C-alpha cells in the first residue's frame, strides 16, 4: 500500500452537455401509450387555447443516452466522497452509508408508492414510521417524534415553533431564545424564522456553557435555550443538568441541536440530561447518505407535554396492544391530523419517507447488540486523533486536559508557526488523498480545524491521516502550500470572481 492514498491519476475533461448536442438527438424512449397515430399527431391547440401554448420548447441539450451516461460518470469522478476517501468533516458525521439500505429504498413498490394511496392499502409502510418512532423514543427517552421536518434546520424550526405556540397558548409573550456563540448558524436563523430574537451567550474556552453565566441571561422573556450537545468543540456540556434545571425553573424549554447525536447513540439518553426537544439528523447519525448536500431528515422528538404540538399529518396507531377486545388487537395505522395544538403542516405529504426507511434499516441492522458501539467507537476514534494530533499540533488544542466526544478541534497556532494557514492545510490534505476537516468553525477558535472521524474508520486510516498532518506541519514549503491542491480536477477556485460577476446558468 502506498503511504498515502493521494498519488496520481487521470482526469477526464468534459464539456457542458449543451455543447455536445446534435439536432434531433435524445436519450429517452417515448412510449405511444397505445394512442392512435392520429391522436399522437394532433396539435396541442386542439386540446387547449392556443394563447397558452409555448411556441419554442426549452433549450435542453440534444444528446443520446450514452452521451449522458458518460458525461455524468465523468463528472462524478471529480468528487471526493465517503466511499473513496477519509472524510473527517466535523459536525457532519460522514460515516459509511450501508449498501443494503440503498437496495431497500430501491424496492419497486416502495419507491413507486403514491403518498395519497388509501391508508388501508399501505399499512406496512405506515407501520415503519410508528416502529421507527418507538426506537427513537427508546434511544432518547423522549415521548414522541414528528417526521415532517425534511432536514436538521427544519427540525429546529419546528421545535422552536412548538415553543412559540406553547407560550402563545399560555398567553405569555416570551421573545428570547438563548444561543451559545459556538452554535451552528442554523440555530439563530431558525429562531428568527420562528419569530424569536436569538440572544448570544459567550461560551468558555472549550465552548461550554457555564451555568453561572447563563443565570445572567434569565428573565421571564426567555422562552428557551438552543444548546448543541456535545457542543461544536466536541465537548460534553458538563453543566447540562444544571442548565436544564435553571431553564425549567424559569418555565423555559431546553432545545438540543441533535446534529452531534452520534456521540450518544445507544449510550446515553437526552431525557436524562433534562432535554425537552431534539432534532435527530437522520443523514448524520443514522447513516443515510448526504447526497452531495441532501436530502436529509430532521425528525423532531419532544417530551410528553409537547406531543400535541407536533406537526401534522402523522402516523397514528389505533388499537393493538394488550386489549381484551379482540377487534382492537390488530392495530390500524392512520394518517391523522388530530393534534390539538399542532404547529401545522411543514411538507406537502408525510415525510422524507425514503430517508426514514434507510435510517430504520440501519437501526434494525445494528440491533440492541451493536447500537451502543457506535458512540463508543466514535468517541474512541476522536480521542485517539485528539491525543495523537495534539502532540504534533502542540498548543493548538483549546481543551487539552479533558476528553472530547465524537470530534475534536484544533486552532491554527501550531501550523501557523510552520507558515501554513488553516485553509492551506485543508487544501494540502486533499493532495494526500483526504477530504479536509471542517475549517474556520466554530468561529471562536482561531483558524479552527474540526475533525470528526466517526466509528466507521479504522485506526490504520487515522494513523495515515495523522501522518499526513505531521508531514504538512514539518515538511511543507509555503510555495507549495499556496498552490495546493494540485492533484484535483481544478486548482484553487477563484471565488472572488465568482461572486463579483456571478454566472448562474449556461
Amino acid at each position, binding site marked *: 500500500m502506498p503511504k498515502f492514498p493521494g498519488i496520481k491519476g487521470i482526469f477526464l475533461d468534459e464539456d457542458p452537455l449543451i455543447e455536445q448536442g446534435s439536432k434531433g438527438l435524445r436519450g429517452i424512449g417515448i412510449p405511444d401509450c397505445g394512442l392512435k397515430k392520429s391522436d399522437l399527431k394532433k396539435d396541442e391547440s386542439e386540446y387547449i387555447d392556443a394563447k397558452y401554448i409555448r411556441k419554442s420548447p426549452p433549450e435542453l441539450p440534444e444528446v443520446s443516452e450514452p452521451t449522458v451516461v458518460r458525461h455524468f460518470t465523468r463528472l462524478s469522478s471529480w468528487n471526493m466522497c465517503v466511499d473513496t476517501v477519509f472524510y473527517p468533516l466535523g459536525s457532519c458525521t460522514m460515516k459509511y452509508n450501508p449498501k443494503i439500505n440503498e437496495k431497500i429504498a430501491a424496492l419497486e413498490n416502495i419507491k413507486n408508492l403514491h403518498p395519497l394511496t388509501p391508508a388501508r392499502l399501505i399499512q406496512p409502510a405506515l407501520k415503519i414510521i410508528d416502529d421507527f418512532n418507538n426506537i427513537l423514543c427508546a434511544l432518547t427517552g423522549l415521548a414522541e417524534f414528528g417526521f415532517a421536518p425534511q432536514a436538521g434546520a427544519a427540525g429546529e424550526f419546528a421545535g422552536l415553533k412548538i415553543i412559540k405556540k406553547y407560550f402563545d397558548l399560555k398567553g405569555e409573550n416570551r421573545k428570547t431564545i438563548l444561543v451559545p456563540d459556538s452554535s451552528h448558524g442554523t440555530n439563530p436563523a431558525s429562531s428568527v424564522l420562528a419569530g424569536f430574537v436569538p440572544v448570544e451567550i459567550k461560551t468558555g474556552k472549550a465552548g461550554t456553557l457555564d451555568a453561572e453565566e447563563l443565570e445572567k441571561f434569565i428573565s421571564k422573556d426567555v422562552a428557551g435555550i438552543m444548546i448543541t450537545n456535545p457542543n461544536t468543540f466536541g465537548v460534553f456540556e458538563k453543566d447540562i443538568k444544571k442548565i436544564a434545571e435553571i431553564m425549567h425553573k424559569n418555565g423555559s424549554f431546553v432545545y438540543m441541536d441533535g446534529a452531534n447525536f452520534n456521540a450518544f447513540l445507544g449510550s446515553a439518553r437526552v431525557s436524562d440530561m433534562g432535554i425537552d426537544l431534539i432534532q435527530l439528523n437522520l443523514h448524520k447519525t443514522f447513516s443515510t447518505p448526504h447526497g452531495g448536500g441532501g436530502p436529509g431528515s430532521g425528525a423532531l422528538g419532544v417530551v410528553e407535554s409537547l406531543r400535541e404540538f407536533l406537526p401534522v399529518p402523522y402516523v397514528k396507531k389505533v388499537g393493538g396492544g394488550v386489549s381484551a377486545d379482540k377487534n382492537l388487537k390488530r392495530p390500524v395505522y392512520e394518517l391523522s391530523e388530530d393534534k390539538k395544538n399542532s404547529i401545522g403542516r411543514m411538507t406537502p405529504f408525510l415525510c422524507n419517507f425514503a430517508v426514514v426507511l434507510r435510517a430504520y434499516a440501519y437501526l434494525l441492522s445494528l440491533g440492541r447488540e451493536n447500537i451502543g458501539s457506535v458512540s463508543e467507537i466514535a468517541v474512541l476514534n476522536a480521542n485517539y486523533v485528539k491525543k495523537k494530533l495534539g502532540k504534533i499540533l502542540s498548543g493548538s488544542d483549546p481543551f487539552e486536559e479533558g476528553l472530547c466526544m465524537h470530534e475534536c478541534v484544533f486552532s491554527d497556532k501550531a501550523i501557523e508557526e510552520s507558515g501554513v494557514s488553516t485553509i492551506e492545510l485543508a487544501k494540502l490534505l486533499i493532495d494526500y488523498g483526504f477530504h479536509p476537516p471542517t475549517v474556520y468553525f466554530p468561529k471562536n477558535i482561531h483558524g479552527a480545524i474540526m475533525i470528526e472521524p466517526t466509528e466507521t474508520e479504522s485506526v490504520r486510516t487515522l494513523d495515515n491521516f495523522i501522518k499526513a498532518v505531521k508531514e504538512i506541519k514539518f515538511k511543507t514549503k509555503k510555495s507549495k502550500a499556496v498552490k495546493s491542491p494540485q492533484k484535483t480536477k481544478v486548482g484553487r477556485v477563484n*471565488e*472572488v470572481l465568482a*461572486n*463579483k460577476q456571478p454566472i448562474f446558468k449556461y
Partner: protein
Amino acid sequence: MIKSGSFYFSKSHEWIGRDSNNKYRIGISDFAQSELGDVVYVSLPEAGKAYKKDGKIGEIESVKSVSEIYAPVDLKIISVNSKLNDTPELINQDSNGAGFIAEVEISDDSGIEALMDENAYKTFIADSHHE
C-alpha cells in the same frame, strides 16, 4: 471647522472627511478593508435619507463575510458612490479616495470632533489588535 483633506474615524472603522470642494464624504478605513479581504459587493445607503450616528446605512460583503456600515455621525446622504456597484474592488484599492461610500450633509462639526483623528485611530487599531 475640520480641516479639508483630513479624516476622522469611528470605533466601527468608518471615516468622515471633507474634500477640497468642502463636501463631506464617508467611507471605511484602510484597516477595515484589509481585514475584510476582497470586497465583492456593497449594499449602499439610500440617497436623501437621514441616519443617526451608529445607525446601519449599508453592508460590505467579501466572499465569506458580511460587515455592516454605520453612520459615523448624524448625517443625511446626498449621493452614493455608484461606481461601487460594478467595481466594489475600489474599496480595496483606495478606501479613502475612489472607494468612498457616499457624499453626505451634516448639520455641524461637533459630531466629527468627537471622533478619532488619524493618529488616535492608529493607536486604537494597534491597541485592539493586541487584545
